[in-house]
C-alpha cells in the first residue's frame, strides 16, 4: 500500500529543500536585472546550502531507514556526507565569488547548476537503488558539464566541457550496462536485494557476474578519476575556471566515496573476490601514476589534478581492504582531502585577479614575501596533501595504511609509501616556490588586495583546521566510523 506516510518523504527533506531553493534562485532573474541578480542569488544560495546541510546533519542519529519505496536510504553515514557536501559546496561558492564575477561566469544559472549539482550528490549518497544512484550520478554530471561550459568565450573551457561530456557519457554507458547486467542476473535493482542474491545463488566465478561488476567498477573509477580512467582529470581541471575546478575537485569526492560504499559494500559485498583485487591494483597504479606525472607539470592546476588521481588511489586502497575500518579510513580520507583541497584552491582564488589566473606554479614564486599569511596557509594545506604530520593529511594516510596492513597487504603498503615519497617532491616544490624563490617582479608590483577580509578569515579557519584538528582526530575518527 503506497501512502504518503510510508514514503518517508522527510528522509529527503534536505534534497527537497535545496531543489526548491535552486528553483527560487533561478526565478530571481525574472524580477531583478541580471547584472544585480547575483548579489541576491549568491547569499541566498549560501544560506540554502547551509540550511540544507543542517537538515541533513539533523538526521545523523536516526536509525537506518529506507524510504520512497526502497529508492533512498537514510543512515548516519548519509547524513554526515550529505551535510558535509552542502557545507563544502557553500565554501566553494563563498571562495569563488570574486574570481568568477571577474570572469563573467557568475550568473544565476551558474549558481542554480551548482545547487542542483549538490542535489545530485546528495541523491547519490542516499541511494538504496541502482536507479536513484544513476539519476544522482547523471544529475551531478550534467550540472558539471554546464558549469564548465559556462565560460563560453574560453576555448579551453569549451574543450574541457566537451571532453568531460563525451568521456562522461561513455562512462555512464559502462555503468548502465553493468547495472543492466546486474538486473538481468538478479532480477532486481534494489541494492539490498542484490546483496541478498549474493548469499544464495550467484557464485563469484560466474562470468556474466564478473562482467557486470567490472563494468560497474569501470564506470565508478571514471567518476573518481582513477587509473586507467583518469585521462579526463588533468584537462578538465586545467580547462575549467578555477572556481569550477574547485567545485568539481573537492565536493563530489564525498559522493564518490558514498556510491562506492553503497554499490560495493552494500550491493556487491558478497562478491568481494571479484572487486578487491581490481581496487587494489587500480589504487596502487593511481598512486604511482598520479605522483610520478605530477612532477612534470608546470601548471598548478594540472599538478593538483594528478595529485587528486593519487589521492583517489589511496581512497581505493582503503576500500580494497574491505573491512569496516578500511571503509571508515576511506571516508575520513575523502573528508580530509576535500577540506584540504578547499583550502588550496581557496588560496589560489584569493591570489587571482583580473586577467591573472594564478594557476601556474611559477605564479606562486616568492609568495612568502608578497603575502606571508596566504603563503603560510598554503604551506599547511600542501603539507596536508603530502601527508606530513602533524597535519590531518597524515592521519588520513595513516588510517588507510593501517587498514591495508590489517587486511594483510603489506607489499601494497610498501609500494604506496614509496610513491608517497615521490609525491612529496612536487609538494615540496610548491613550498620551495613560495618560500625559497624570489617573487617575480611584475607580481611584486601588482600585489593588489582584492579579496574580502571575510574570505581571508574563512580561509584561515579552513587551513588552520587542517592542523588544529590533530588533538581531536581520534574523536572525529570515532564519529565517522560510528556512522558506517
Amino acid at each position, binding site marked *: 500500500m503506497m501512502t504518503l506516510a510510508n514514503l518517508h518523504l522527510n528522509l529527503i527533506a534536505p534534497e527537497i529543500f535545496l531543489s526548491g531553493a535552486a528553483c527560487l534562485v533561478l526565478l530571481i532573474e525574472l524580477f531583478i536585472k541580471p547584472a544585480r541578480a547575483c548579489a541576491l542569488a549568491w547569499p541566498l544560495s549560501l544560506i540554502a546550502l547551509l540550511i540544507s546541510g543542517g537538515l541533513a546533519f539533523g538526521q545523523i542519529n536516526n536509525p537506518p531507514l529506507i524510504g520512497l519505496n526502497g529508492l533512498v536510504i537514510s543512515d548516519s553515514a548519509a547524513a554526515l556526507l550529505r551535510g558535509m557536501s552542502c557545507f563544502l559546496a557553500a565554501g566553494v561558492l563563498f571562495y569563488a565569488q570574486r574570481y568568477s564575477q571577474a570572469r563573467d561566469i557568475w550568473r544565476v544559472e551558474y549558481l542554480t547548476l551548482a545547487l542542483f549539482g549538490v542535489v545530485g550528490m546528495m541523491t547519490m549518497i542516499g541511494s538504496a537503488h541502482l536507479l536513484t544512484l544513476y539519476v544522482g550520478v547523471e544529475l551531478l554530471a550534467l550540472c558539471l558539464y554546464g558549469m564548465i561550459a559556462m565560460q563560453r568565450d574560453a576555448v579551453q573551457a569549451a574543450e574541457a566541457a566537451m571532453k568531460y561530456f563525451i568521456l562522461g557519457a561513455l562512462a555512464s554507458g559502462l555503468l548502465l550496462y553493468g547495472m543492466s547486467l546486474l538486473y538481468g542476473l538478479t532480477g532486481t535493482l534494489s541494492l539490498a536485494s542484490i546483496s541478498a542474491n549474493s548469499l544464495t545463488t550467484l557464485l563469484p566465478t560466474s562470468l556474466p557476474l564478473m562482467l557486470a561488476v567490472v563494468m560497474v567498477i569501470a564506470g565508478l573509477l571514471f567518476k573518481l578519476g582513477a587509473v586507467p580512467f583518469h585521462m579526463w582529470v588533468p584537462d578538465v581541471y586545467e580547462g575549467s575556471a578555477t572556481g569550477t575546478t574547485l567545485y568539481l575537485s573537492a565536493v563530489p569526492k564525498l559522493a564518490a566515496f558514498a556510491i562506492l560504499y553503497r554499490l560495493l559494500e552494500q550491493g556487491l559485498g558478497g562478491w568481494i573476490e571479484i572487486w578487491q583485487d581490481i581496487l587494489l591494483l587500480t589504487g596502487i597504479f593511481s598512486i604511482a601514476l598520479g605522483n610520478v606525472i605530477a612532477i612534470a607539470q608546470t601548471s598548478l592546476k594540472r599538478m593538483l589534478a594528478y595529485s587528486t588521481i593519487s589521492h583517489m588511489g589511496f581512497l581505493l586502497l582503503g576500500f580494497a581492504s574491505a573491512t569496516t575500518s578500511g571503509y571508515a579510513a576511506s571516508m575520513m580520507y575523502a573528508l580530509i582531502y576535500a577540506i584540504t583541497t578547499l583550502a588550496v584552491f581557496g588560496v589560489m582564488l584569493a591570489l587571482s585577479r583580473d586577467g591573472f589566473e594564478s594557476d601556474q606554479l611559477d605564479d606562486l614564486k616568492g609568495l612568502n614575501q608578497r603575502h606571508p599569511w596566504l603563503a603560510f596557509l598554503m604551506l599547511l594545506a600542501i*603539507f596536508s596533501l603530502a601527508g606530513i*604530520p602533524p597535519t590531518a593529511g*597524515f592521519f588520513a594516510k595513516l588510517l588507510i595504511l593501517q587498514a591495508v596492513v590489517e587486511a594483510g597487504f603489506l607489499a601494497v603498503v610498501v609500494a604506496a*609509501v614509496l610513491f608517497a615519497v615521490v609525491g*612529496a*617532491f612536487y609538494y*615540496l616544490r610548491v613550498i620551495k616556490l613560495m*618560500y625559497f624563490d624570489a617573487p617575480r617582479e611584475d607580481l611584486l608590483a601588482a600585489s593588489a588586495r582584492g579579496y574580502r577580509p571575510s574570505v581571508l578569515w574563512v580561509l584561515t579557519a579552513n587551513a588552520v583546521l587542517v592542523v588544529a584538528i590533530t588533538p581531536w582526530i*581520534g574523536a572525529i575518527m570515532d564519529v565517522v566510523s560510528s556512522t558506517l
Partner: protein
Amino acid sequence: MEIFDGHLLSFLIWAPVLVGALVLLTGKDRRAPAARWIALGGSVVTFLASACLWARFDRGTAQMQFVERGDWISRFHIEYYLGIDGISLPLILLTTVLTMVVVIAGWEVIRTRVAQYFAAFLIMEGLMIGVFCALDGILFYLFWEAMLIPMFLIIGVWGGPNRVYAAIKFFLYTLLGSLLMLVALLFLYNATGGSFDILAFHAFPLSNSVQTLIFLAFFAAFAVKVPMVPVHTWLPDAHVEAPTGGSVILAAITLKMGAYGFLRLAMPIAPDAAADLAWLVVTLSLVAVVYIALVALVQRDMKKLIAYSSISHMGFVTLGFFVFDAQAMEGAVVQMISHGFVSGAMFLCVGVLYDRLHSREIATYGGVIKVMPVFAFFMVFFAMANAGLPGTSGFVGEFLVILGTFSVSGFYATIAALTLIVGAAYTLWMVKRVVFGAIKNTEVEALSDLNRREFWMLSTMAAAVLLVGVWPAPLLEVMQSSVQHLLTHLAVTKL
C-alpha cells in the same frame, strides 16, 4: 609537586611550540626586536624547565619517569604517552641548551624574515623534545616527521646558494627512511594485537625473520638520520647550505635523534636481529670512522669538513651501540652529548668567521689569531675537543667506546682508534691553516674580534665541553641504570 611533575614533559614540548607561534605572530621585520626577545625568553624558560627535570630525575631506576598517559585516538589505541629515562634526559637538556645558544647566535645575523626564523627554531625545539619523550609509536613518528618541516624551511629560506637542492634532498632522504619505519610500526601494531605502546613492543616476542625485516625498516629510518655510510650524502649538503643555527641544530640534535631511535626502538624491539646484523652496523660504522675521516681531510670548505667529521664521530656512536658492552654504550651516549656541544660549537665558530667575510673556504683565511685572539682561543679549544684531547668531552666518549670495544674485539678497537690520528690530523690541519700562519689578505687583516654576544655564546659551549670532559660523573650516573637495563634486555632473546 605531583601536578608539576605530571605535566613537565608536556610543558617542555608545547611551551616552545606556543612561544614559536607567538613569535610568528609578531610578523613583519620592523617588529624584529620583539620577535628576538620573545624567542630568547621562550628558550630560557624551556631551559629552566629542563633543568628542573634534571634536578628531579630519580637516578636509581631504569623505569620511565615523569610519565604522562592519555587516550588520543582510542579507536587505534594511539595514546598521548610520554616518559623519559636516563638516555633521553641528557638529550633533552642538550636540546634546550643548544636552542638557547642558537637563538643568541641568530640575534643580529638574521635580518630578513626574523620572526619566521626564530619561530622555526622554537617550534623545532618542542618537536625534538617530543621525539625524546614519546613512548607511543605514532606520537614518536609524528614528532619525528613534523620536525622536518621547520628544518626544511630553515635550510631553504635562510641557507646558502645551493640551498634548494640541499633542503629537498634532506627532506626526501629522511622521509623515505621514516616511511619505512611507519610501515614497521603499523606491522607491529597488528602483530601485538592493537597497541602502539613502545614499551609493549619491547616485550613482544617476534620470530627471527620478522625481527630482521623490522630491524631493517628501522635501520632505514635511523641510518639516514645518524647518518651512516652510504646514506650520509645529504648531510654535507644540508650542513653547508644551512644557516649557522640550522647547522648547529642539525649536527647537535637531529643526528642524535637517529642514534636515539636505535636505542629506543630498533635494538630493544628486535634484539636478536640487532645481534645478528651487528656485523653490518659495525662495519658501516668503522667505514664511517676511518673512510669519512679521510674524506674530511681533503675538504676545502670548513663547514663541509665539520660535516664529514660529524659523520665520522657518529660512527663511533653506532659502533658503541652495536658491540653490546656497557662501557661502550655509555661511552656512545656520552659521545652523543659531547658531539652535540663540540660540533655545534665548531659550526658557531665557522659562523662567526662567515658573518664577517662571507666565505667558508679554508683558503680565504690564515693568521686569524693575530686579529681575533679571543676567537682563536675558542676555535683552538673546540678543535682540540673535536680531536678528542683528554680533559675535553670529546675524549671521554671516544675513550669509553674504544675501551668497551676492546673487550669485545681488538680488531674493531684498533681500527676505531685510528680516528684519534686522522681526526686530529684533519681538525688541527684546518686550525693551522685558518687560525695560525701569516695573514693572507687585507680582508682578514680588517677582522674584528668577538663581540659580547658571540663571546657568551661560545663560552657557554666551552663551559659545557669542559664540564663533561673533566667531570663526566653526573652524566654517567644519570644514564647508568637505563643503559644497564637496556643491555640486560638486549641479552635476552625474544624468539
